[in-house]
């Protein structure tokens, strides 16, 4: 197996996550096997009268990892989670970018030239939530019964009551910006916003930069903060969210690909890894957690098969148009095929597939059928796994969280538990090969797929453990 089209290996030398079970990856891995629920009553805002009252919230943010404590005051929660997690991944890699940290820069093997250190993020936005600081001014300046505002009054109120920091807090590239500022990262960078594929897209571009010799190392990953009134409500309105947790049942569970599934639970989360060229990683004798062998993404040319099918109530019968499935299948298959080709891997090399099953009625059914098609097309027999039954749907971060969990299971040589919440898998899920038993990722490759559920973008990556490459 090769590792890239240019023959340049991409090593993973640092990793970190934050989830509804915290930011200790060992603890998160253990929680997946426990009966403990990670979904609790929402504390980020008051939910009195709201239909959705449960979510997955990060119980703690490792503010000690903040490069600068002042950032705690200016960063929104989602960005705070992203910056701390990305920084922890850098710390985990032992890379040093600041001269003050390196007693002798030239001789310190862990030194990386800041201009050769990049950052690629897939961090979602709280678009409408960012406008909250203006709401008081909007309300006060609304012209009763006319559906409009008094602009002059609005301007006066905004200028006198809104803190400019609120504007800076709402910048959508804040997570990227503060991570690069805090860690002195001066190289290639970007920030993707392509729904659930954002994290994998960031990873794909980070790999590209290293392959082209434009960076020695990049920190890549995704973060999401959907536990705020707007996104929670919107998800409910679209019929995505489980109604089963509308009460205060703290034992609510998500049941991916299960016939009893009732929707997803949205979760905060972030996961980042440090990618490094083989030469750089070997030179400094870095601990290599795994290798990235292939990455690819494609569009389905369909705005969203699930969005169409889900229009209306979540309780309606699941119906998927064959044409919609074909376009989605095409993009997912294309991504996997391309990623496998880059990795010079075949279906026989694959030991596990990481899907996105999150308990949504239509989406899970579509995904099960699509992954079945991918497995057939590529002669893959590996089981399909997801952490979303326990960790919830953290959108841009979801696939990256699973990648960090896989790295930990490789490192510790432990199995991944059966997919949480699967007790009576659907026919399509069985055909797909849902992991009803514990999975040993072993020494084989892993494929991660993110489907075109919203926005029509699909992505895939192929990773393999360090010891396989020796």
């Amino acid at each position, binding site marked *: 197996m090769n590792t890239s089209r240019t023959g340049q290996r991409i090593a993973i030398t640092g990793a970190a996550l934050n989830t509804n079970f915290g930011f200790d990856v060992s603890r998160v891995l253990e929680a997946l096997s426990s009966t403990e629920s990670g979904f609790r009553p929402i504390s980020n805002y*008051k*939910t009195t*009268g*709201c239909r959705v009252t449960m979510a997955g919230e990060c119980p703690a943010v490792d503010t000690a990892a903040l490069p600068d404590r002042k950032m705690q005051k200016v960063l929104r929660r989602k960005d705070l989670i992203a910056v701390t997690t990305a920084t922890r991944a850098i710390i985990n890699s032992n890379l040093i970018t600041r001269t003050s940290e390196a007693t002798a820069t030239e001789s310190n093997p862990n030194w990386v030239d800041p*201009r050769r250190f990049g*950052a690629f993020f897939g961090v979602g936005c709280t*678009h*409408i939530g*960012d406008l*909250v600081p*203006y*709401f*008081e001014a*909007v*309300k006060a300046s*609304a012209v009763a019964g006319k*559906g*409009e*505002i008094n*602009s*002059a009054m*609005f*301007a006066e109120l905004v200028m006198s009551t*809104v803190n400019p920091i*609120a*504007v800076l807090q709402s910048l*959508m*590239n*804040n997570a*990227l*910006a503060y991570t*690069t*500022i805090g860690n002195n*990262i*001066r*190289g290639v*960078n*970007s920030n*993707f*916003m*392509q*729904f659930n594929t954002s994290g994998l897209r960031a990873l794909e*571009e980070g790999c590209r930069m290293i392959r*082209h010799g*434009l960076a020695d190392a990049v920190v890549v990953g995704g973060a999401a903060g959907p536990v705020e*009134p*707007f996104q929670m409500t*919107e998800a409910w*309105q679209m019929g995505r969210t489980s109604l089963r947790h509308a009460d205060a049942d703290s034992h609510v569970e998500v049941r991916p690909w299960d016939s009893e599934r009732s929707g997803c639970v949205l979760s905060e989360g972030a996961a980042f890894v440090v990618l490094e060229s083989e030469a750089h990683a070997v030179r400094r004798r870095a601990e290599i957690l795994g290798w990235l062998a292939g990455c690819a993404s*494609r*569009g*389905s*040319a369909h*705005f969203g098969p699930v*969005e169409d099918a889900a229009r209306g109530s979540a309780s309606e019968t699941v119906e998927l148009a064959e044409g919609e499935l074909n376009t989605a299948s095409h*993009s997912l298959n*294309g991504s996997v095929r391309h990623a496998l080709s880059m990795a010079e891997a075949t279906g026989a090399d694959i030991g596990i597939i990481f899907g996105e099953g999150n308990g949504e009625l239509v989406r899970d059914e579509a995904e099960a059928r699509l992954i079945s098609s991918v497995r057939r097309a590529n002669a893959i027999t590996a089981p399909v796994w997801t952490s979303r039954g326990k960790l919830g749907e953290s959108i841009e971060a979801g696939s990256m969280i699973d990648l960090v969990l896989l790295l930990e299971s490789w490192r510790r040589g432990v199995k991944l538990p059966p997919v949480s919440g699967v007790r009576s898998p659907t026919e399509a899920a069985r055909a797909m090969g849902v992991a009803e038993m514990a999975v040993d990722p072993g020494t084989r490759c892993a494929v991660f797929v993110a489907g075109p559920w919203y*926005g*029509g*973008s699909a992505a895939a990556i192929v990773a393999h453990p360090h010891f396989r490459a020796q």
Partner: protein
Amino acid sequence: MSASAKRRVCVTGIGAVSPAGNDRETTWRRVVAGESCAMPISQFDARGWQTRFACEVRDFSMPRGALGPERDAYRTRANEFGLAAAHEAVLDSGILATVDPDRFGISVGVGIGTITPTQVAARLGDVNSSALSEDLARALGNLPDQYFLLRNHPGTLASLLSEHWNARGPLSTIHTACTSSGQSIGQAWMQIRDGDADVMLAGGTDSIAGELYHAAFCLLSALSKRNDDPQRAARPFDKDRDGFVPSEGAAVLVLEERERALSRGAKIYGEILSYGDTGNAYRITDLPDDGAGIIAAMESAVGAAGIDFKDVDYINAHGTSTPLNDRIEAIAIDRVFTARDAFPLVSSTKSVVGHLIAAAGALELAFCCLALRDGVVPPTQNLTESDCSRTIRFVAREAREAPLRIAMSNLLGFGGSNAVLVVRK
């Protein structure tokens, strides 16, 4: 990012919607003529505002065929601009009948959105200010518009374009503030070079001319306050500059693998030679005094293009007309070019069209292509006396004809991302 790989990338189609015109050529004519687009704001009653003018897109209507009626629910002002620009670019390129959908991708840079206070007010209903989050969540849950968030999601435009033009190749949405569409083009360029696609629709869209975002930039004191003379407000590199002029619009370019373009006899505006992408690692809104980030991006782009600094004939500067940006960018240009005895012509087209934020990079690269095509450098309007540099060859007030072969577009964004694109005739 080098152009030395086998696959080369050309620009074969350009579409634009801007305050200077709702198509490419109208926009370009006005930019060359140096006619400022700044006018009193028409989208809302701006009396009493700190800044009461902007560059607005006027008399705009989406062209037929830019979006199917089944996706009407996803139309926003910014999305419409992007869809219209893409429509013009696709038709301009003549690509449609020739492209394999699997080899056709989308890469767009998008802005912070076009939500208006009226829309917010409509969703707030009877929300009690004293219990904001609680009432807000309840009020939102009772509203029928279930696509409000998806319509305003940054990723929606790319998805709509992918569907409408049946593009099944790579699909990306990028937001890095003012560098968004420069990065989207740079990454699309790399994807074609790497063989991930043969054709990419790449560009950006934005609109900050509504109250909410206008208010945000007022709060940051980033806007010009020259309310008595809006047309003289945007004056990049001039000693009397006092802030940028907010704007809106979109530009989309068709990027195509060169051999493919040649084989089908396509009109070629230029070849993208390289892309420089760096970070400042400094502050969110400020630039380091030494201009290190943008210097590194320009040096990287020139080096990767395999050209000499003296080969660059024209720089379309970021030139926002803010005191800090222009001073630092001029320092950077002097250090990169003047110090090497290279003296490209320099202008900032923001003096005419204002600052399109996420769409600025795409529109300004389009201007570079058109400058190469016509052999004319558009002027920096209102630049009478510069306090930024005495050595830079600014093209001020009037366009200048010149034999142009290589042009560069500079972008510097809030958050510290810098992007530089180099294009050759």
